[in-house]
């Protein structure tokens, strides 16, 4: 086992944080495998990204730069990853476990006829194979998953926001290597991207989340939570009860049938803590429960809790956050 290739997700020419986390993780694994780390990035007009990736330890940066790669397509971006893997012959490939990464990595794995350690929260090299752990069954169990040691290639998608992103002490060479993708076949094409209103932070990427459930009583009360989001720099999340009531779009839903998040802070306001909700936020580092029912299951997973009326507590938190900043 030696070389490690990391797929770098960029959108609009910006490298996603999850990609830097995977690069940092790749660097840590390379210390054990004794190999070098390379990155692959696909898009249009993106050749300027190599410097940033070098700072995070990429000795080589394979760049697939073409107009037809301007918008994401699984077929196009998988072709770029596949071409880089052919050129670099890695034994490990890391792809950040974002919506894009979880779309690209399995398609690539199937192309190579190998398995994939998906959504791992820890990842190590043990006796020549990748071993990771991940929550399963709505977080009610934890599985240790291992790649086939005989596989020519071992692939993993690390869960975003779980691994640290840190620059290397000494930047790597970051030698840009252009990839020419011949015979590109893109059938499923993105024709448009409809961005969320107001450039909100998405819960899937946020480092802090303030989330509301049925306890907020109606959509007219979101401003109370949004004010706290604003002070903390947090994204706004919701329980399924709030989404199904039509109070907010599904893109905010956290849980089994929503998004799985691992922020450093998750503030649950008027959310009881059903197992399907916990499936989405149970791996948050610090959980705060604000609920008037002392028996609410959310208090069982919470780090801090206040038993009380959210309509009094949340505005008071906003005020306290303002004072703290001042």
């Amino acid at each position, binding site marked *: 086992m030696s070389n490690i290739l990391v797929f770098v997700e960029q959108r609009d020419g910006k490298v996603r944080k999850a990609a830097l986390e995977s690069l940092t993780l790749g660097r840590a694994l390379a210390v054990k495998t004794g190999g070098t780390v390379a990155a692959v990035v696909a898009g249009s007009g993106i050749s300027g990204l190599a410097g940033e990736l070098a700072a995070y330890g990429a000795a080589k940066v394979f760049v697939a730069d073409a107009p037809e790669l301007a918008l994401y397509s699984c077929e196009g971006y998988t072709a770029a990853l596949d071409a880089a893997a052919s050129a670099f012959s890695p034994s490990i490939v890391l792809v950040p476990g974002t919506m894009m990464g979880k779309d690209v990595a399995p398609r690539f794995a199937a192309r190579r006829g190998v398995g994939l350690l998906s959504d791992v929260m820890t990842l190590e090299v043990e006796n020549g194979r990748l071993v990771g752990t991940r929550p399963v069954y709505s977080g009610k169990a934890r599985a240790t998953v291992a790649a086939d040691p005989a596989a020519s290639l071992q692939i993993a998608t690390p869960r975003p926001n779980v691994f640290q992103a840190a620059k290397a002490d000494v930047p790597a060479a970051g030698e840009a290597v252009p990839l020419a993708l011949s015979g590109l076949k893109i059938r499923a094409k993105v024709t448009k991207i409809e961005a969320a209103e107001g450039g909100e932070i998405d819960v899937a990427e946020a480092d802090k989340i303030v989330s509301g459930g049925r306890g907020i009583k109606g959509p007219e009360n979101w401003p109370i939570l949004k004010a706290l989001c604003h002070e903390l720099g947090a994204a706004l999340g919701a329980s399924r009860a709030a989404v199904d009531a039509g109070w907010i779009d599904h893109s905010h839903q956290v849980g089994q049938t929503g998004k799985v998040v691992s922020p450093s802070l998750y503030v649950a306001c008027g959310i009881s803590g059903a197992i399907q909700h916990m499936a989405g936020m149970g791996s948050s580092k610090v959980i705060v429960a604000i609920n008037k029912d002392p028996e609410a299951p959310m208090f069982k997973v919470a780090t801090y809790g*206040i038993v009380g009326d959210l309509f009094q507590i949340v505005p008071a938190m906003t005020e306290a956050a303002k004072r703290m900043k001042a």
Partner: protein
Amino acid sequence: MNHIVCIAYVPDTETKIKIGADGKSIDESDVKWIVSPYDEYALEEAIRAKETKGGTVTVVTFGPAKADVGLRECLARGADDAVRIAADGLAQVDSLGVARLLAAAIKPMSFDALWLGNKGAGTDAQTLVPMLAEMLDLPHINLVTKLEWKDGAVTCWREIEGAKEVVEAPLPALLAAQKGLNEPRYASLKGIMAAKKKTITVKTPADLGVDAASISGEKAAVRWTKLELPPGRQAVKLIPADDPAKAAEELLHLLRDEAKVL
């Protein structure tokens, strides 16, 4: 328009999880099983398309005999045929192996849309959809929350971080459903009666030309080497709320100075 919908029969999300004697899988004795919720959205969308445009809906699963209950539920809701790839007696098969089996079963079939849920509830790996699409050489669209059929093509809205991608693909294509796509119906009494009379076609991996031993247990491309209960979280630190302003003040200081997240 003909549709194939792949379903997984999985532990109910409410069910209590006990670790099996092998320490690698769950103890299935008291588990309640359901059709994976995402697959219900997929099935519903296929049935709606059949109702408006005609055609058939075939459900396919890889599972043991008890999964027939799930297939019958799908037949009762409006699917026409059901195929089960028999998993009876097989050790754990990972996504790559399941994709191989499904691909082998589906390859000879003719269809316009192949449907899956975006993940199987429980294992939640989200790997099957792109793997199966690759093996069948199909375009795929993942995490579909809205869709419009076009002539020989489909336009889907796909959920990504902070935005929705509008994706167009020619048919046949593989589409993976996400919550928000529709509200799945319940089976009618008439549907339930009709489903009882239908036969479920059972195929073994060998029937499909797949050597089950080469994709299961110690030969699976990814193995679960251990399953354990999650590490417990420390007990909650409760902050008295008699004075909301003081409680909030204290909480924020704890978040900054003790938890160091602010």
